């Protein structure tokens, strides 16, 4: 079996057209899945007997919350590759993922507080998950701010990689510290940990929406990484050969 040389695609020039071909597939699947997920979530899934219609926000809340944590891990993995192999493209992928991760975190927080108002009677509780999600948002914003503060792209790559890795080690510590702090302070006025039994259609809808969020994140990250490649490689000859560059 012929072995595929993965390092071939670590060159921005080789990856740029591949990413361009992948975007419609991931973007299209995300759109189709989101349409199905919304249809199941808003149309088919039954009303929850405890929470009424308010629970339907989980179809957007849970997928974005999952993605917010997952994207941070992926970003840290790209950062580790960037530091370990000194590959430029890995750092560009990490850079492309950060805004999407921050967006997912923000949406998860926003929808969570919208759900909390009718269900818990408050927009914000210092619940362990909400608090660690908030700190995750700060971590994302820190990485983005550090990137923006450094003019030299290569230095920014490596500095952000170090920060992402330190953050990734800290994320589980932050989560557990907040969790223990919360149990000490609050008692169990708000019980999120006991997962409610979910109807099968609700679970299906949620999983489909999770895949939609995942594919959306991939598509938008690829889109962004193409823009980053064009910006960083603007001096390279192959960029000027591109049809889209010539025509503009």
């Amino acid at each position, binding site marked *: 079996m012929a072995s595929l040389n993965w390092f071939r695609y670590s060159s921005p020039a080789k990856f740029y057209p591949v990413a361009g071909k992948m975007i419609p597939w991931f973007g299209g699947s995300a759109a189709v899945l989101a349409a199905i997920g919304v249809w199941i979530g808003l149309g088919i899934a039954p009303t929850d007997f405890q929470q009424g219609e308010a629970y339907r926000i989980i179809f957007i809340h849970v997928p974005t919350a999952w993605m917010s944590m997952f994207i941070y891990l992926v970003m840290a993995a790209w950062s580790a590759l960037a530091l370990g192999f000194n590959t430029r493209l890995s750092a560009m992928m990490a850079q492309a993922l950060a805004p999407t991760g921050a967006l997912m975190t923000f949406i998860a927080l926003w929808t969570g507080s919208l759900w909390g108002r009718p269900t818990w009677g408050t927009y914000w509780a210092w619940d362990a998950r909400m608090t660690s999600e908030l700190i995750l948002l700060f971590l994302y914003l820190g990485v983005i701010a550090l990137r923006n503060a450094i003019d030299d792209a290569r230095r920014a790559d490596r500095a952000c990689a170090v920060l992402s890795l330190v953050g990734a080690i800290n994320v589980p510590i*932050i989560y557990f510290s907040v969790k223990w702090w919360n149990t000490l302070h609050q008692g169990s006025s708000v019980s999120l940990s006991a997962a409610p039994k979910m109807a099968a259609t609700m679970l299906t809808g949620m999983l489909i929406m999770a895949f939609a969020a995942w594919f959306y994140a991939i598509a938008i990250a690829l889109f962004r990484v193409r823009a980053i490649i064009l910006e960083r490689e603007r001096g390279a000859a192959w960029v000027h050969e591109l049809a889209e560059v010539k025509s503009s």
Partner: protein
Amino acid sequence: MPSAPASATLDAGAVLPGVRWALARDMKLALRSRAELGVQLLFYVIVVSLFPLATTPERNLLATMGPGVLWVAALLASLLSLPRLFAADHADGTLEQIALSPYPLPALISGKILAHWLTTGLPVALLAPLLGLQYAVESEGLLVLTAALLLGTPILSLLGAIGAALTLGLRAGGSLLALLILPLYVPVLIFGAGAVDSVRAGLGATANLSLLGAGLLVAAVGAPFAAAAAVRIALD
């Protein structure tokens, strides 16, 4: 610099001399500008004194929030003093010479971090019983508060060194440093301030102090390497 060993790569024998040299140098520099250290300590005292004025002089409430206030002030004092770790050395080129020296860079940075803690974290921890008294913290609570600060403030210096190195020579370095480092300080804050809370709740502070100790060990092993990597990135 005293006779440095010839090989730069992972010479175990050069680690301790490296730590010692950097510690002695930074301590000497810090003690020559004592006024600056005094100002930082005063900042801590003033921040702590502002909280009762802003909230309430009621003793029960003060005792509840006292440890948290002291910890937040310790975090801010640490943050304020972090630029001192590398900024001056970076500005006059000393940091480049330090990075070129035959001693392992993480060892030299460990020495600098230790010096930073001795001149900022340690005084903050030693002042804590006095300030705790103002907040009506009881005797055992004072002891635990001081112990927690003694264990926790070195972590602040260790993590802070990474952020200080990452933001070397950047625009808006100070506020950027706060954004990078304060979220990483959260576990230290929670376990540290939680130690006194557990004592008040009758649980004992062992769990919190053990976690702080564990965090200190992990940070002491890992942070100098991360900070060294960040310094090399900044010097490129």
